[in-house]
Structure formats: C-alpha cells, structure tokens
C-alpha cells in the first residue's frame, strides 16, 4: 500500500464520525446555530447531540455559549478557528484519497 493511501488512517477520527461530521458541516456554513436547530437538521436525539457536541467542545472544535435572544434562552454553538482548520484538513485528506483511488 502506498504512503498516500496509508494516510487515510491519519484521518481525524473525531470528525470522521458521520453525526459529528454533519454537525461541523452545518456549523461551517453559518456564523452560529442553536441546539434546537442542530437537533432538527441532524435528526439526532437530544442526548446524542449533546454527547457529540461535548466531544467537539472538548477537542476545541466547537464553542458552546448559553445566551438569550430577547427572552428566549438559547444554547448557541459556533465552529472555532481550529475546528474550521481541522474540518478543511479532513476534507482535503478524504479528497486526496478519493482522487487516488478513483
């Protein structure tokens, strides 16, 4: 196996999980989104989404803030700069693999 293909094993496994990849992709296309929006868009349960967000927050990929919009309490999630960088790198690695195996 060539070194190029072996690099697939270097993929960020935190991002490689489909639900987390979807969460990061959604957050990459907005400035921020709240918990309810992410839950509806991903189709995950509250507990599941919460667990994935916690992992992403621990890794420093996502910033979570509790705030208010008028009187409405919101849990707002934002992609951090390192999250954006990790996602871009992940996509590039995957794209390289696809190009070389096509």
């Amino acid at each position, binding site marked *: 196996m060539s070194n190029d293909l072996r690099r697939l094993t270097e993929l960020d496994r935190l991002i490689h999980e*489909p*639900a987390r*990849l*979807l969460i990061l*992709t*959604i957050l990459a*296309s*907005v*400035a*921020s*989104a*709240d*918990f*309810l*929006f*992410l*839950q*509806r*868009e*991903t*189709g995950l349960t*509250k507990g599941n*989404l*919460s667990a994935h*967000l916690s992992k992403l927050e621990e890794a420093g990929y996502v910033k*979570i803030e*509790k705030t208010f*919009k*008028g009187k*409405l*309490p*919101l*849990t*707002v999630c934002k992609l951090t700069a390192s999250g954006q960088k990790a996602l871009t790198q992940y996509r590039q690695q995957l794209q390289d693999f696809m190009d070389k195996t096509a």
Partner: protein
Amino acid sequence: MENNLSDVKQRVKRYWYTDGIGELIGGGMFVLLGIYFALQEVLGQNSTVGGILQASFALLMIGGAFISRRLVNSLKTRLTYPRTGYVEYQVNERGMRWRRILAMVLAFVISALTIVFVRLFQFFDSVVAVTGLIVALILVVLRAKSSGLARFYVLGAVSLVLGLGLSLSGLPNGYSLGLFYGLMGVCFFISGGLTLRGYLKENPLPAVTDNEQ
C-alpha cells in the same frame, strides 16, 4: 442519516425563508411604496405635501428598511426560533462590498435603460416595465437561485408580467407604479401568509420550550 452533505449549505440558507416572515414584511414595504407613488400622482409634484413626499423618499426607504429588519427579527424570535431553532448567518465583508458595487452599477444601468426606453418607446410606460424586470431579476438571482425555492421563481415571473402589463395599460406613471408595487405587495402577502400557515401547522411549539443541552 438522510442528509446530503453537499446540500447542507443550501438547506441552511433556505431556512431563512422557511417561515414566510420576510415575504410578509417585504409585502408590507411594497404596499407602502405603492401608496407612496399613488399619493404622489394624486397630490401632484407642485403641491407642498407632494414635494415633501418626494424629498423624504430616501428617508422613508432607509426608515422602512430599518423597521422591517427589526420586525422580521422580532417575529422570528417569537415564532420561528422557539419552534425550529436559531441561526446566525455569516456576513461576508468582501461579498457585501461586491454587492454594493453591483447595486451601484445596477442603479446606473436602470437609469440609462429608462432614459433610452422613454425616448424610443413613448407608447408604453418604461419605468414600470424596467421596475418589473429589476424586481424579477432580484427575486430570481438573489432569492430563488440561492435558496432553491420555487415560489421565488413564481414571484419573479409575476413581477415581469405585471410590469409589462401595467406599462401597456396607459395609466399615468404614478398610478401604474403604485399599482405595480401594491399588487406585488399583495402577492408577497399571499406567498408569505401561505408559507407561514404551513410552517406553523408543520411545526407546533414544543411542549417544553427548553433549549438547553
């Protein structure tokens, strides 16, 4: 997971239009513009009130845009965010600069086209026709294409037909322009109203409005 990743960006963009609130408020602005142009025709340019109206056009537009923005935000906070969640969109500074330049170029082209049309085709009201064309272009390019929502194509087509139809009606310029904006406002109301009704029906307020993790 049914989501197609490449479709995510468009889905997120489309979310802004999912409740029809923007169209309802936009419709209100259009109706007000319609009343403004019709009033100008009724009062005449030589009357004091007509003159004041004409002079305050820019102020009315800026004020209207400001109030509309606040109204949309307020309604979304009450109706949309508790039901389907809150999203803050990215503001692309470079994109905004290009949009401003494009708007200026567009304004220049509209003015030039209007002058050319007035001289070439005196049998029809070119101002309304060009207005219909511009509104249609804005709806198709800035709304329909980016969101992928069919109702904006329909509204664009209505604008084009209405603009052309009224340009041939023989009505005085102020009335035809007033009628154009008024009728487009009604179309926006219908489109926004139906969308909002469907949205509220599909998305009842959650029993527990807990947004916490």
